[in-house]
């Protein structure tokens, strides 16, 4: 065989091999996007779940927080599953006055939005904080109100 001259068979085999490699690389690259999307969604759901835990079980910081002194807002009265009606009122006031403070308090630098709805057993709205359209994750929690011993529903929704 002369130098610089390549067999047609060699060319065909290299072509077949390169096509296969390209196909594999493109397929792998295409699967990365859904994986990343799922990971982001799971992370967001995890944040939503944690937020519901903080609101339901945390007394907040300081424990007798109000609209001005609040560092971290939670509606627990200190007893598990017992929500303080005074703290729910304070949460409402804080949200109306400075929603972005609550965002900063819960999420820091993450660009997330949340919504918290609290309704009593008759369906009366006790708290409506935030406005999230098409939430990516919602969770419904239950608690007992310290003043009336009524069972209340706390719905927490989040989205990016």
């Amino acid at each position, binding site marked *: 065989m002369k130098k610089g001259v390549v067999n047609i068979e060699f060319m065909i*085999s290299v072509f077949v091999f390169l096509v296969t490699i390209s196909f594999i690389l493109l397929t792998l690259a295409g*699967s990365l996007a*859904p994986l990343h999307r799922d990971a982001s969604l799971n992370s967001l759901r995890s944040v939503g779940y944690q937020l519901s835990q903080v609101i339901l079980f945390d007394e907040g910081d300081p424990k007798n927080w109000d609209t001005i002194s609040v560092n971290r807002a939670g509606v627990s009265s200190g007893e598990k599953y017992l929500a303080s009606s005074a703290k729910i009122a304070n949460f409402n006031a804080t949200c109306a006055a400075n929603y972005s403070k609550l965002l900063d308090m819960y999420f820091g630098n993450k660009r997330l939005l949340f919504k918290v709805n609290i309704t009593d057993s008759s369906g009366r709205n006790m708290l409506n904080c935030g406005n999230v359209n098409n939430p990516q994750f919602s969770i419904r929690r239950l608690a007992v109100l310290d003043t009336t011993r009524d069972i209340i529903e706390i719905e927490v929704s989040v989205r990016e």
Partner: protein
Amino acid sequence: MKGFIRILEAIISSLILIAVLPFFLVQPSESEWGNIALQTNALDTLAVLQKTTRLETYVKNNDVAALNSELIRLLPKAADFSVEVSGIPNPVILVGCVCTSTEIDDLENLLWPLNFQYKERQISIRVSNMTMNTVDPRTRVLFIFGYLNLTPYKSILTQFLESGGTIFMFTDLTSSQTQDGILNTTFGLKWNAVISSGGSASFFVPGGTTKISHKVSRYYENISGRADTGTFSGLGDSSINRIEIDNKTVIFSSQVSLVKANDYVSKNGKGRAIWFANYGYTLNNDAAQQLKNLTKATIMWASGENYKMDPFTKRPAQRFLEATHIGQIDGVEPFEIKLVVWRPFS
């Protein structure tokens, strides 16, 4: 020819690469967040019902309708559920008696009153007649008057025990009877000719809270008003009944057991068996009355201490989630409540 083989090599290597490709492609699995939310909801539901003391009230009053309407309100609309209570005597104890009509009357008199209060709970014992071949599946206690060789009914008994039933044999025993293949296995009785019986009978270490005797002694104490440290006389024929004592002994006298129970007897961990030595149950003196109270207390344990609080029979879907909670009736009577939730249309 050489070139053709080179093309073939390239095709084979390409096929190998394509074949291993799925190994690197992770298929996104179904999200478990829906289940997490449902289970969290079930746990929250039990916790808030306990917080408002409604859970204890529903269990205490066996108020199935109120508990179900509350759960329908609190759980997601797309979920179905079933409630199971364990650790306390069943509110309705269905006793199937393998006996004659006279013995049925005797059993009812022995357990009288059949409807009674226990720790603010209404308990009802219902006795009906049945044969070994016609065991009602709802029966919780299969009461057998006198010795009966149960070996021919082994498959029926296995099914009955696996459904959570209890076999209660009320008889004095001889050596050969305890070797029948059921009493020495399912009942866990062991004959020992050397040991001797005598004197009054009493609870076997009533203080040991993990033992069956402790549970029965507590029931006895509360229905009779007598201390569980008291003694019983007239129980069992002292010339026979050479059953060894072990951790499952409920009542003993000297070196022998006179009432012995066994639990978790079936392969699926359910089922109970009790052997109770005979006594003069037709007598009306105080000693006989205390033995009748003891029999009743044993029947309460034999109920299986496990029942459903569903308005009708429910069968959970293949994939279900559970939430459990420990409650207390009257501040001292602990029970476990299990809420099983599932999505019927998922």
